[in-house]
């Protein structure tokens, strides 16, 4: 709340929300201002990170204005009717930045937390599981944040049950709880989405080079802990689902 409409935020946010839209269709991509609002809502601490104030995600430039849905001054209609490849690249890069900053923020908070405790912000993303063994495992991994060597693939050091738990939590927070997902149509289920996300996250190459090769300039180099790396990757994958963005 303290940062919601800070001047720094207003610069990029309001610039983008001033003059952009896409053509209305049966399922409409949100306008760039709505996308920024989605980022702001879903990654409240990452999206307003000072590092993002003046980057391409939060600022309109001659390079990105047309594909973001700029309107023709002559008739007020969108120049580009539908999001194109450039839009997808902008979106993915912006999402990766927001996720990277969000996780970096969580790690910083956790490193400042009292020994043996879990920071409240971390708990918002990863509430303690009811299952005792899972709870212990997660707690242990969180406490090791910043002290553990970055593994080539953090998934290998996390039990399958905990991975499913993390995916469930992230999906619930970024898209909605099971009843919402199950109510989206006969061909869609929460279980199906989670399986899809889980498979995608597990297939990711977590090394920095891997992310770079995908074009994501993430700040995952900060997330030296396996659990935070896994959390970031899950956020990223969920953020790329249609259900995250579209109504």
């Amino acid at each position: 709340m303290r940062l919601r409409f800070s001047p720094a935020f207003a610069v990029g946010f309001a610039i983008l929300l001033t003059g952009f839209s896409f053509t209305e269709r049966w399922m409409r991509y949100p306008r760039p201002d709505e996308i920024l609002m989605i980022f702001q809502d879903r990654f409240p601490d990452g999206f307003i990170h000072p590092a993002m104030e003046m980057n391409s995600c939060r600022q309109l430039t001659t390079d990105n204005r047309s594909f973001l849905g700029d309107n023709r001054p002559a008739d007020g209609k969108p120049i580009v009717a539908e999001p194109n490849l450039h839009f997808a690249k902008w979106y993915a890069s912006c999402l990766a930045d927001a996720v990277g900053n969000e996780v970096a923020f969580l790690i910083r908070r956790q490193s400042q937390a009292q020994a043996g405790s879990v920071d409240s912000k971390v708990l918002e993303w990863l509430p303690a599981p009811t299952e005792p063994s899972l709870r212990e495992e997660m707690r242990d991994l969180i406490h090791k944040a910043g002290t553990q060597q970055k593994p080539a693939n953090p998934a290998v050091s996390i039990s399958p049950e905990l991975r499913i738990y993390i995916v469930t939590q992230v999906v619930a927070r970024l898209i909605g709880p099971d009843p919402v997902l199950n109510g989206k149509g006969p061909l869609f289920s929460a279980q199906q989405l989670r399986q899809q996300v889980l498979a995608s996250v597990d297939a990711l190459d977590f090394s920095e080079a891997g992310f770079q090769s995908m074009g994501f300039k993430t700040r995952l180099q900060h997330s030296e802990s396996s659990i935070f790396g896994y959390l970031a990757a899950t956020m990223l994958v969920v953020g790329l689902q249609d259900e995250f963005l579209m109504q």
Partner: protein
Amino acid sequence: MRFRTWALSLSIGLVLSQTSLATAAEFLSPHGVLEKASRRLRQNQLPSAADYAELETAIAVGNLDAFMDQKVLSYARSDRFAHGMTFRLLEDFEVLTSGNLGRNVWSRQPVPPYGEREDTLTRFFFKLAKENQSWDRLLTGTSYEVPIYETALVRFQGRTDPDFLRELLDGPNPSSQLDPVFVPRAPRHSRNLQEPARPEIKLLTFPERTPFLAGAVTTNRFFERYTNVALNKNRRRAAALFKIFLCDPMVPAIENGLDKKHEYLARAFPKEWSLSIQDIRTRLKSTDAEIHGHDAQCFSCHYKLDPVGQTFQASGLNLSRSLSPGALIYKNALGNKVDLPVSGINDLAHRITEQDDYVACQVRKFWRWFVGTDIPLDDSRLQQLVRIFNHMNHQPQDFAAYLTRTEEFRTFPRKIDRIDFSTVRPHLNRCDSCHHGVKTKSGDALPQFAMSFAQLQTDHRPWLLKMQERMNRTDFRRMPMDWQSWREDDLTSVRLWVQQSINDLAPEVAK
């Protein structure tokens, strides 16, 4: 009072029981409805965990309908709703242009959120949505929040909102006077260069039915967007009113295609003429039946544009206190001619809001914004909604919240299996690279497909049939000639689009 209106509207009985329908396969679950309502009403904001918890409690105690009524209404009362509506209105008025944006980018001045935005029109929209004023105030409103900038900033930005309203400020009417001399600049050393330049906002309230005011229409940004020249006679502004408030598409009578355009324009301005501006003015004032204003096809628009345009005549660059009488003349949805003389722009605004077509048009917009274009709105349903909209005194928050409680809102989204022109345009460009301008045996030049097919017209059908025939051939005349180098998906898209367009353009009998 508002709540009573809301409750009454629900009692009309058009909303079916949420609980009984939730289990049907084609409807969203209550959780899904809450999420969708929250996203549509609050610019994609998700319901909070507490909202979901309350929902589950409501389901458990059998209080679902009352809970949903209360919750969606609270969403519609939020600032996010007002922000969303502001943006929708800016789009609808087609004033959402980067031209309004440039100075903020290049001067790197932070731009405040909508409710605090610097232009009168945006603030007008936000206030209307936030205060749940009657939707008619878009046309009949007489209260403005006018930003006053420092002189130095104003100079290079052209005409400002205070400039536009200057003539009004000389009279006794405004409840608070604007200072046309602007706010003096602070000494340079005391100014923080990083500090955003924020205008001083003055509230300017005129009495109801002030004859020279018409809500959002009599604002600087509307006038700048729909510019006028002497020849145009405010027809552009008149056309905007028909488009925005009566959903009249105002398709140009002059058909697309250079030859025909020249043919029609020649009726007004024959090629052999050597005309001065004065000649043109004289010609337009004449009663010669040959001039384009009297041509039957041209007159299909001019009979309604001209009298509405006259009501703007008193105002040039700036808003004037003088009145210019005109008339609201058009054919309504029933095919009856409406002919209402008006004394000025405010009278015109009130006349428009009294039209059934106006209400139906606005209801359709709300439907598109909140229910979605994938769910069809038939005439009988439209009439039901018009009655409800009237019953709610045209209040946007209440009506938007109501729409999210309808049965249609809870149905699953349906994909419309149509190929969009933007999908095929790049492929048609490939066709144009060889065929554009080539003449057929009969002497007709092939149109530029990627341009002219953007707005399909009846006489395009023969070309489309020809394209279809050529694409389906198997001999050397098959098109595209280099079809092996095309992706199968692209060819399929073009084929489907051609077929779809042929069907669209089929004569009514064939349909």
